[in-house]
């Protein structure tokens, strides 16, 4: 950590040599390969697809899964550090890797048949195939259980009808993990392939956040899939929710990468920018901002690190993930805003990363469980009274 940003509570000392080298590799990659491209893609609303094979070669997708299932068998701390570095570059890059690893590879790994694992996981891990994850619908975000997308058994096949909204990678994906409700009301997962009749994707335009990321709408009109494309080993909402727990874990790390980038940009600027007789870093108002930013980043780092240790010990629960996702998004949101303040007028341009991170964080704040829903999830656990219908 300390090589690449603040590490006030010496987390570096707790990392293994492999974890440190993995972070360095991810940091080098983002600095050399991604950063030179990000502003243009952000302005154009595109994703640098040419980097996907490189991400695959390096092993950045689904890294914590075992090698035989397309991963690299690294610790959850290492996986978190990778996402930390990717999001230091841009949320769009981290979101790409999160979706591929936690929302596409993970469900196939956890709930897929042996044939499905054999067919897809190596191709996904190497970046030769791209995946997306369809749960959210235009009218059902926080309560996915009320989804309207339906699957109906038809002999050996299933017929799927409906649509999904806000789908990262949707239009560039070769496969989609789609969740649909059957006639008995059970949520089931399917692996849909690009080009299947009745399956289409169209991009959502006009985003002012996560611009360096493809976001799409998926639609299914009597899409006929064989039963062998159904994820056989899970039924019910716990399937998609368990995937989201994986992805939210990564977000809690990623957010600290974005916050660290904002902090470093603001700190360097404050030391160099002179107003009146001295650098603005010499003023108490700026120092107070920097002290708050550093304290909150340190808090978020410790939460993410301990969460990863719990995950490595297989003791992590979804409530802890809710807390970390909620907390670290809020920290990053505040740090990005404060960094922009320190940058003054220059801070509103794309030449300085904080306003880009700031706009991105608005998406992250809301996706993968809104800040409000995570508050209510924690509230329910604290009071044992649910504020929403389960």
């Amino acid at each position, binding site marked *: 950590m300390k090589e690449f940003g603040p590490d006030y509570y010496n987390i570096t000392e707790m990392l293994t040599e492999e974890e440190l080298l993995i972070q360095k*590799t991810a940091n080098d990659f983002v600095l050399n390969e991604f950063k030179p491209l990000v502003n243009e893609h952000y302005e154009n609303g595109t994703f640098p697809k040419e980097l996907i094979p490189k991400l695959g070669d390096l092993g950045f997708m689904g890294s914590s899964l075992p090698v035989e299932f397309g991963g690299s068998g690294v610790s959850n701390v290492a996986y978190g550090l990778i996402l930390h570095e990717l999001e230091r570059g841009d949320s769009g890059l981290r979101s790409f890797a999160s979706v591929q690893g936690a929302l596409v590879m993970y469900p196939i790994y956890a709930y897929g048949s042996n044939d499905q694992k054999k067919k897809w996981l190596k191709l996904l891990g190497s970046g030769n195939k791209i995946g997306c994850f369809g749960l959210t619908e235009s009218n059902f975000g926080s309560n996915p259980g009320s989804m309207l997308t339906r699957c109906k058994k038809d002999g050996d096949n299933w017929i799927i009808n409906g649509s999904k909204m806000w789908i990262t990678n949707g239009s560039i994906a070769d496969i989609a993990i789609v969740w649909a409700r059957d006639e008995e009301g059970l949520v089931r997962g399917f692996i849909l392939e690009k080009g299947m009749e009745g399956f289409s994707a169209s991009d959502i335009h006009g985003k002012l956040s996560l611009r360096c990321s493809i976001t799409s709408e998926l639609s299914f009109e009597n899409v006929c899939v064989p039963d062998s494309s159904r994820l056989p080993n899970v039924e019910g909402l716990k399937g998609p929710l368990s995937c989201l727990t994986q992805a939210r874990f990564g977000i809690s790390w990623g957010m600290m990468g974005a916050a660290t980038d904002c902090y470093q940009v603001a700190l360097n600027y404050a030391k160099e920018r002179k107003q009146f007789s001295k650098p603005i870093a010499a003023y108490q108002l700026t120092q107070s901002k920097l002290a708050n930013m550093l304290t909150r980043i340190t808090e978020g780092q410790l939460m993410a690190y301990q969460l990863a240790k719990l995950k490595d010990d297989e003791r992590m629960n979804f409530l802890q993930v809710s807390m970390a996702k909620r907390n670290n998004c809020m920290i990053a949101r505040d740090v990005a805003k404060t960094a922009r303040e320190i940058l003054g007028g220059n801070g509103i341009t794309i030449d300085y990363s904080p306003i880009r991170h700031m706009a991105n964080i608005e998406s992250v704040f809301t996706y993968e469980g809104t800040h409000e829903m995570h508050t209510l999830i924690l509230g329910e656990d604290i009071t044992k009274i649910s504020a929403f219908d389960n």
Partner: protein
Amino acid sequence: MMKIAVLIKQVPGSESPLSIADSNVWLDEEKVAYIMNESDNYALEEALLLKEGTQDCEVVVVSLGPERVKKIIREGLAKGADRGMHLNINSNDVTDPLSIAKIFADALKSENFDLILSGLQSDDLGHGQTGIIIGELLKMSTGSLAVSTKLDGDQIAIKQEMEAGFFQNVRMSLPASITIQSGLNTPRYPSLKGIMGAKKKEIKTLDIDSSDQKLKISKLYLPSSSNEITMIDGSPDQIVENLVKVFKSEIKI
């Protein structure tokens, strides 16, 4: 089998804070962020490319220094080197190229390497001699400042960078020790698989007695900045006249 040694050195990173230790002869190790010497990283990549183009080839990364240098040995293994050698020395005392070259030559002799690659110079001390002296001590062919390499049977052809934009194509017989110029290839990133696999690769440690040395750093200090600025005032004509005087008499253009 073709055996290639790559000599890699751990040096303070260019963005690392550099504070002088109380001894005034070296840096405060606690504060330094160490990295693999830049041109050594290119030498390593060149070796890995040669290995990929050669049947039955082994790449061994070798580093001299205290325990901390194992970090870059592991980095080399993660990138694809087959095994590592750590020439373990307790201090930063040995700084002269001849003594360093003797240590390497002694350690490498029995391995009978066909090729030794190293960066053209270290970013901290910058002598630029070690690789060549090692070659001489081991009675190998030597070449410096290579910007391309090509193995051809029991020979190696290299293109050397000369002064003033000239290049020289040289062919020499193996075994050879060649120093590599930065920028001749694109060093790879270690993949996660490589990093995880590096744990299983061998690092042989040889303890080195550092008593033999010909050169010592007597004082290390940061350059002091001077504020000697002479303002030339007056009318444009007077300024020009005075400026010309300064050019002629003081700067002596």
